[in-house]
């Protein structure tokens, strides 16, 4: 392989590798911290404090909750800094689980995307960029970005809503799980469209590449 070939998949290879290592490190530190009692992983660990933020709602002042018609359930704390936050210093297993679901889906989608990018880069490095394999992996990556982002948003919104219901007396402003979709949809949709389009271009380029390879 020549130097030019190796640089073909850069800087994607390096950037994906960097984020992959970072994700692994953060996960490992979180798990170890939760196990030895110095931190938390998701909502788990001895020192885990579970918090949720009320979505799609803003509060103008820092005046307290009684005036806003919001009250905490027994054992929960509230505070306002433009938006309403509710925390449980001693969370139940259900609250811990819901808290984990407010963040874990995005992390899983990230991990899946990084893995697929790594496989894509490896295929391009080994077999060249204009192959059916690269096109197929690019298409798969596009679908995972789109569907993964949508699924993660819905699951996290639903988990946040369920968690808030255990922290607030009245379930104000919890919203439905799909209300945040329009806000997050544009970027994954654009990435999906770009990846599928480039996959088509690569598929077309495969035939041209075969002709070039067969030219003496």
């Amino acid at each position: 392989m020549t130097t030019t070939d190796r640089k073909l998949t850069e800087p994607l290879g390096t950037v994906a590798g960097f984020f992959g290592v970072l994700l692994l490190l953060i996960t490992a530190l979180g798990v170890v911290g939760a196990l030895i009692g110095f931190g938390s992983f998701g909502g788990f660990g001895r020192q885990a404090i579970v918090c949720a933020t009320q979505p799609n709602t803003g509060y103008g002042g820092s005046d307290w909750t009684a005036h806003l018609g919001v009250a905490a359930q027994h054992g929960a704390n509230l505070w306002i800094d433009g938006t309403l936050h509710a925390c449980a210093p001693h969370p139940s297993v259900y609250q811990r689980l819901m808290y984990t679901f407010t963040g874990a889906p995005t992390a899983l989608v990230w991990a899946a995307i990084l893995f697929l990018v790594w496989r894509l880069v490896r295929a391009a490095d080994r077999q060249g960029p204009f192959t059916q394999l690269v096109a197929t992996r690019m298409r798969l990556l596009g679908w995972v970005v789109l569907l993964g982002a949508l699924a993660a948003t819905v699951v996290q919104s639903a988990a946040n809503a369920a968690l808030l219901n255990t922290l607030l007396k009245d379930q104000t402003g919890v919203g439905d799980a799909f209300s945040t979709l329009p806000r997050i949809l544009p970027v994954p949709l654009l990435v999906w469209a770009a990846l599928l389009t480039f996959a088509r271009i690569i598929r077309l380029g495969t035939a041209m590449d075969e002709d070039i390879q067969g030219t003496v």
Partner: protein
Amino acid sequence: MTAALAQPGEIAVRLDDLLTERGMTLTELSDRVGITIVNLSILKNGRARAIRFSTLARLCAELQCQPGDLLRYTGR
């Protein structure tokens, strides 16, 4: 309405015949024209999808032939 196009025949490369006629080996030709043996083998065995004009010119110059001597259309 368009009539269905008949499948064309194939282009055969007569490199083997020309080398025999001139008493030359593939290795010698490779050295003289500066084309790798691998590429000449692809050409000789009919596995090439295309041939550059420059390749054709170098072969014709060395084998003292015309492109028509090197290529032949084999109909179905």
